[in-house]
């Protein structure tokens, strides 16, 4: 079909791991049972995190050598991408994987804290700090460190471990990276530029270097876990370890190979409010709500100050059924939007909307949840949203 024409885009595979468990069944069970979020306020006190459920990495990354070449966020992502390919029924299908277009929303980094602090202590007390730094880095950094850290190496590892080679693109930029990874994958299929794609991201919350980055500007949730919309002031970001990948596919391609769609991805928006203008974020959310009619809302609100209150204001005014993703699995930055879409697809395919969490006044309403609007507003910049609809 000519590029530019619009066609439907289906979600035909989902890989999801979080603090609530591994896979769609585990997540649906936890959500529909109204299970309390799994949080850890001790290990990185005063910061709260949602720790990842224990995974058997061998199941998706059989070679130990491959596992050793990755940092935790890359392992989580590579594992989850494998789950998504399994779920879509295309794992090990070389013919399809060689045409599968991949876009990953990725961060990077993962420092070796012991090495870093040891080097810092020597540099601070040295009378030739420049030379000291150079020598220590040459001696103490693992040669493979830069590969384990490079943002695009999550995608690289997915290519190597699972054989996804149609194309490989990595978007960076925190929450927006996840939104745009999905949006561009979706838009390419809708316009006939691609037939099948793998999109998603992964986040390891259990690392102090990321807590440090967000602590610099006082963005982390401290003390005990609180629901994101629980008070007049946003409670801070409770980061959560997670991986989420979706297989997106044209209906023609899916039908031809006999695949069953989980849900339809009807729209993805990635926009930019002027955050320094009062009311601009609420206006964006109202805009998303208006475009999606009576859809229930699965909010990706981060818990960060400013943007969370603005989203809450718009959601309350709309009076639509609302649930928070972060109240269940924490906030996973680049992975948050893909994870929220995964939960939305799960919800429309199984329904009705899972129960609200006690203690969060914005979480209200019931819905059979045939249509779910997912919001993904960045803690700092970028306002995204997506609409997921039931098929049939």
């Amino acid at each position, binding site marked *: 079909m000519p590029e530019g024409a619009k066609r439907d885009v289906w979600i035909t595979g989902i890989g999801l791991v979080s603090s609530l468990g591994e896979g769609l069944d585990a997540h649906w069970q936890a959500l529909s049972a109204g299970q309390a979020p799994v949080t850890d306020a001790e290990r990185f006190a005063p910061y709260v995190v949602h720790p990842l459920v224990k995974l058997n990495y061998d199941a998706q990354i059989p070679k130990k050598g491959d596992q050793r070449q990755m940092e935790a966020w890359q392992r989580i992502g590579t594992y989850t991408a494998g789950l998504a390919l399994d779920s879509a029924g295309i794992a090990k299908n070389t013919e399809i994987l060689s045409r599968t277009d991949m876009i990953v929303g990725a961060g990077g980094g993962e420092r070796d804290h012991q090495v870093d602090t040891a080097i810092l202590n020597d540099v601070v007390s040295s009378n030739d700090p420049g030379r000291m730094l150079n020598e220590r880095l040459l001696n103490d950094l693992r040669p493979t460190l830069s590969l384990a850290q490079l943002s695009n190496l999550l995608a690289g590892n997915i290519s190597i471990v699972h054989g996804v080679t149609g194309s490989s693109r990595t978007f960076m930029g925190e929450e927006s990276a996840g939104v745009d990874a999905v949006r561009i994958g979706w838009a390419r299929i809708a316009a006939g530029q691609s037939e099948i794609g793998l999109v998603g991201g992964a986040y390891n919350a259990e690392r102090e*270097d990321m807590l440090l980055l967000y602590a610099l500007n006082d963005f982390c949730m401290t003390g005990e876990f609180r629901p994101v919309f629980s008070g007049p002031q946003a409670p801070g970001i409770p980061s959560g370890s997670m991986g989420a990948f979706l297989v997106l596919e044209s209906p023609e391609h899916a039908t031809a190979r006999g695949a069953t769609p989980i849900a339809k991805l009807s729209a993805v928006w990635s926009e930019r409010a002027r955050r320094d203008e009062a009311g601009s974020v609420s206006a964006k959310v109202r805009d998303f709500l208006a475009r999606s009619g009576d859809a229930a809302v699965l909010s990706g609100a981060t818990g960060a100050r400013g943007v969370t209150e603005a989203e809450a204001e718009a959601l309350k005014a709309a009076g639509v059924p609302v649930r928070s993703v972060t109240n269940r699995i924490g906030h996973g930055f680049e992975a948050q939007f893909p994870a929220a879409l995964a939960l939305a697809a799960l919800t429309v395919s199984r329904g009705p909307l899972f129960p609200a969490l006690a203690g969060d006044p914005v979480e209200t309403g019931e819905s059979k949840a045939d249509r779910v609007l997912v919001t993904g507003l960045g803690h700092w910049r970028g306002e995204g949203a997506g609409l997921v609809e039931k098929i049939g």
Partner: protein
Amino acid sequence: MAHTDKHGRPIVVVTGIGIVSSLGQGKEDNWRRLTAGESGIHRITRFPIEGMRTTIAGTVDFLFDERVPAPDLSERLATLAAEEAIAQSGVGSKGNFPGPLFAAVPPVEMEWPEKRKLAENASHHPVEYRDLLLSAASGKFRPWHERFLFGSVADRLADRFGTQGQPISLSTACASGATAIQLGVEAIRRGDCEVALSLGTDGSVHPEALIRFSLLSALTTANDKPEEAARPFAKNRDGFVMSEGSGALVLESLDHALARGARILGVLEGCGEMADNFHRTRSSPDGKPIIGCMKNAMDDAGITPADIDYINAHGTSTPENDRMEYVGLRAVFGDEALAGIPISSNKSMIGHTLTAAGAIEAAVSLLTIANGRIPPTINYHVPDPAIPLDVVPNVARDAQVRRVISNSFGFGGQNVSLVMAGEPA
């Protein structure tokens, strides 16, 4: 009637070009020095080099007097390249660019001088990591949060130029600049926009970045004569030179460009990519992904190898890359045809600008077409008999160049090729 290509899609043209490299600021300076065969590689003065294996780089040292964090420099480089490209295109108005931004930016993390300040701010020494966390939470270093976000460079560029929507920050390692262009081309073809700003920038020569590449044995250690260290395709090549710079293109549908009477600088005819799953840093020995990538770009452009007049090589000057690029080219073009096509590596002069390379080299490819002059591969004094190529050795060459293929290959199995022409077909 709308102007469409062989696949029925809107034709995408270039109406603005901007370049900054170690050779200078602006496309005029860069073009003059590139065609004069000058090198921008020099001894590093930005930070102490004692104890390092590689002590040379193509740093851009004329923008700041003192050391700044890498994202500051990347942002400044991109700003200058984008200003030049937008000014040339004349599209939009000041602070209101009428399309999205696709920005290839280097991965970001807090650097050692900042970590050191956190350590020095701690209440006791030696520090443990939790002391650094406490220091971070002191509120004394708030601006570093934004600065070391992965999205911060593109965010500020979006604010400055008033691009539409949320900007995309991307990385496909050393193919990033080409991917930024590909994303812009695709968006225009989809009809998402009529105009896009695609750029690549890299200002990340700092001690740890240099040492990380050293530890991968990727860098040359020919420190004695910096200007002669980058030797793509030569037998005595021994690694790449890390460099800085930025390239920016204003992309536009031909219809939109014609309607506003813009000068057309070239056509982005085709983009191709193919991921390699052989190894994290090495190409598949059979060259299949590289071959597939180039073929995809030519198919996308609706052309055959016989239509290519010049190859703008990835040509990093590592033993592995240049050999594999030859293997791929030979399979695509065949021995006989390949012998008749000039190929050169801009990296022989400006080094490997990493995230920016694909964008800078696309910009240089367009200048090559426009000027009918091919920049040389300098430092080519010892041919490698295993990779017989017409590398335009050492001296620029006048030639009619109607169409170029520009290659970008990166760690992580990233391969992107772009096909560019002078006139709409």
